[in-house]
């Protein structure tokens, strides 16, 4: 049994065995309810209350014998069972441990498909090194099996989009892990522009072929975007800002338009950089152009703790279990703990996988941080509250609080333990997964 509270004095996760015995009937009831719910569209839209032996709200201490009431897709009440009124017509389901719906702070599922065949791989366009105009919304397949798979582990929100592998590979977006169309699933249509520094985005022939060339190309493109923005803000006759309907100096350029959004701070630049020199380059670039930087990957970030903290840059850390090879060769299982100890905002991610496993599961990656220096509460924050804060979606998701989306993950024990199962996933008050996994 392990404490969920940083102080070690709070509530504890129950062991799987205890839960199995004590709550077998609940699991059965839950399964029945879920089976019914999934078969009956009307019921899935019904109001729902979720009981947990422990409800980990990530907004205050965990609640022992807690209950979460979800009305019309939003959390309507949270508290101790017996103290919170549950309307009679509400379905009530139970689990040993209830957490906020989990957030994968960076992946590619939806653009990346399970089969790894050309028809289901839309995460990277290789026709040019700088293509920020590629939108994720035009490429996400919300019915992709990988998304369904991730959903079954309690992941309800994911930041997905164009993958690392080109200097600027395209845009990302934030979705819920259920939705018939991308519009249904959309949380944030444009989340960031994805860039990659280091050998992962060099070319054997053509540019960029080196680190130096990468930064030169990026700087030149951003300077072009500055110029573009300046011209866009000027009328053709250069007599003050353009009035409605007045033509501007330059034709509309989707590429520079997006980079201008980065320069304006509307969109962060998500820079995948793993080697220390690439991380330093990202910080330097952000400083020069005053752009919002999300540092991604960051395998050697433990070498630049002070610099990252001084730059007030959040880190979306590589999956803990990514292979320690190439620019990840010096990765450490303890990087997350070092970054959190330094006060650097941190979220975990599933990353991109080119082969097997086709996606990682951010729950498992966070579990490894809990095993290597983070408290369970801190580790859970990297895939709930803190991930939401970095992604700018805290008003919707990340904690179990009244008014937020009714997104929950249900477990039969410590969510991080290898042998625990995710029993179900709820998004906007609907049971969207009932596979015991």
């Amino acid at each position: 049994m392990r404490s969920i509270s940083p102080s070690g004095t709070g509530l504890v996760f129950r062991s799987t065995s205890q839960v199995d015995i004590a709550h077998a009937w609940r699991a059965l009831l839950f399964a029945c309810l879920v089976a019914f719910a999934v078969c009956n569209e009307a019921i899935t839209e019904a109001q729902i209350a979720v009981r947990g032996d422990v409800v980990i709200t990530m907004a205050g201490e965990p609640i022992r014998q807690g209950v979460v009431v979800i009305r019309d897709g939003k959390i309507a009440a949270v508290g101790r069972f017996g103290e919170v009124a549950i309307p009679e017509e509400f379905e009530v389901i139970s689990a040993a441990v209830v957490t906020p719906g989990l957030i994968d702070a960076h992946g590619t599922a939806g653009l990346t498909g399970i089969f790894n065949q050309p028809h289901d791989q839309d995460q990277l366009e290789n026709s040019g090194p700088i293509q920020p105009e590629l939108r994720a919304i035009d490429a996400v397949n919300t019915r992709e099996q990988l998304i369904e798979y991730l959903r079954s582990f309690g992941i309800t929100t994911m930041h997905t989009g164009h993958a690392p592998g080109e200097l600027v590979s395209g845009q990302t977006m934030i979705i819920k892990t259920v939705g018939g169309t991308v519009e249904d699933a959309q949380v944030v249509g444009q989340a960031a522009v994805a860039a990659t520094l280091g050998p992962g985005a060099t070319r054997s022939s053509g540019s960029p072929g080196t680190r130096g060339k990468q930064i030169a190309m990026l700087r030149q493109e951003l300077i072009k975007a500055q110029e573009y923005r300046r011209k866009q803000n000027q009328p053709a006759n250069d007599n003050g800002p353009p009035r409605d309907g007045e033509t501007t100096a330059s034709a509309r350029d989707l590429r520079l338009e997006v980079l201008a959004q980065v320069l304006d701070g509307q969109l962060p630049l998500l820079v995948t950089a793993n080697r220390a020199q690439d991380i330093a380059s990202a910080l330097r670039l952000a400083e020069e152009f005053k752009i919002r930087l999300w540092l991604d990957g960051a395998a050697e970030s433990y070498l630049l703790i002070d610099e990252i903290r001084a730059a007030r840059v959040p880190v979306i850390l590589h999956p803990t279990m990514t292979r320690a090879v190439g620019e990840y060769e010096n990765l450490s299982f303890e990087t997350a703990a070092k970054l959190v100890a330094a006060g650097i905002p941190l979220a975990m991610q599933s990353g991109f996988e080119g082969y097997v496993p086709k996606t990682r599961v951010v729950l498992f990656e966070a579990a490894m941080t809990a095993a290597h220096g983070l408290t369970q509460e801190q580790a859970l924050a990297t895939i709930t509250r803190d991930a939401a804060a970095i992604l700018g979606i805290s008003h919707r998701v990340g904690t179990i609080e009244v008014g937020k989306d009714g997104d929950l993950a249900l477990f039969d024990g410590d969510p991080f333990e290898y042998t625990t199962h995710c029993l179900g996933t709820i998004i906007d008050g609907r049971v969207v997964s009932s596979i015991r996994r």
Partner: protein
Amino acid sequence: MSRAEFGSEACYVPATKIIAQRSENWNMGNRHIAGCQWACVTFAMVLALLVTPPKIAEGQEQPLAFIGARLIPIDGPEIERGTLIVHGGRIIAVGDQQALAIPAEAQRIDVAGKTIMPGLICTHSHVGGIGGADGSGPIQPDVRIFDSINVRDSGFRRAVAGGLTTLNIMPGSGHLLSGQTIYVKLRRGHTIDDLLIYADDGWLMGGLKMANGTNSIRSGGGPFPGTRGKSASLVRQHFIKAREYADKVERAAGNPDRLPPRDIGLEAMQEVISKRRIVHHHTHRHDDIITVLRLSVEFDFRVVLHHVSEGWKVADEIARAGVPCSVIVIDSPGGKLEAAELSFETGGILERAGVLVAFHTDDYITDSRLFFRSAALAVRGGMTRSGALAALTLNGAKMLDLDRRIGSLTPGKDADFIILDGDPLSVYTKVLETWVEGQRVFDRADSEDRLYAVGGFGAGRDQEPYFCCFHEWMMRQYGLSQQQITQQQD
């Protein structure tokens, strides 16, 4: 001279006295094949030429008594507070702390609160910067993986940090037959020779790597197959050729004038036909698995099925064939068509069907430091705890013909064991120490060892790893250069 079906003991029986033995473990039936005298002569010659192979460490003169730990012997019930005594590189005694007498001269080591279990056995690893068969053809039994291993590769340090003590190091799956594998003990060695495992008759122990399905199929013609049908036909033809070679050798009856010209590839095949060398067969899709079983019957070779992503679909057929499975556990299905239905439940389904199950890391597909995780996720998927722990240890030993020597905490076996700070199936548990043949090869309290256990600056690999199936995406993902990509293509 004829030699019977393999058995766990077969490798330890002097070649000149090979006797009929049936496996208690694999139950492969009554297949019987003529061996060859010539091979025995060869073994004897090799034996004579060999400097005595690395034996059990001789430095450990004083018995060591590890007192008070929870013992997980694998071949018996767990002992809540037990004592393990090792001496001369072997396990001397295992028992309850209260009941077991400790020799007066023994050094006592208090391990109360810790857990001790056998060293883990990985039946399928690619550590060591290996390179097996090249691009010249799909069938290359002449290639020995041990000629390519960098024993200083940090992958070995990570492996001991993960509690591994024995590996089957294999070439990749990009060929129908990519070469001879090697079984190694993770002793601290200066050359690969220090890690090798020899049978009692001096035979250098290893298997033969084969593969079917998409990894060994290549488009664009050339010598490589383009379809599954062609893959099987190439393999069948090669086995026929190997059989003919073996027959010629047998007919020669040791007469040098009648022996065929030596062919080192066919010599390895001859060891497969005589059932001494086990085929370790990469296979994922249900029909590919069945194809392996069909060929193993036709050519009567011993085989372990590796990966078996869709093994859950044909568990009963595998069980009926009496063929063991070494299962890979991966975080998600997919990545290639034949792994799209991979499941955490495979281990449990095979176990319930009566199949002998082990796990493997496929390092660098999964990290050797996380090997326990494979077993734990299989338990999550329905496998029994005891079955999953055996699948990390004794079952793997059986698949390598090493179960007489390793795989359980049993008096007489090698003193290969690990000390844990908690339950082996918990995410929070760490390997504190790894011992091979009575020598400590990993100590988490040592700063250098710890670097390899958790990672950090300087923990990088000496060589790029071999990726089992070349994929440009994978190289891009890890930021490898074009030159490195080219080097990896075979």
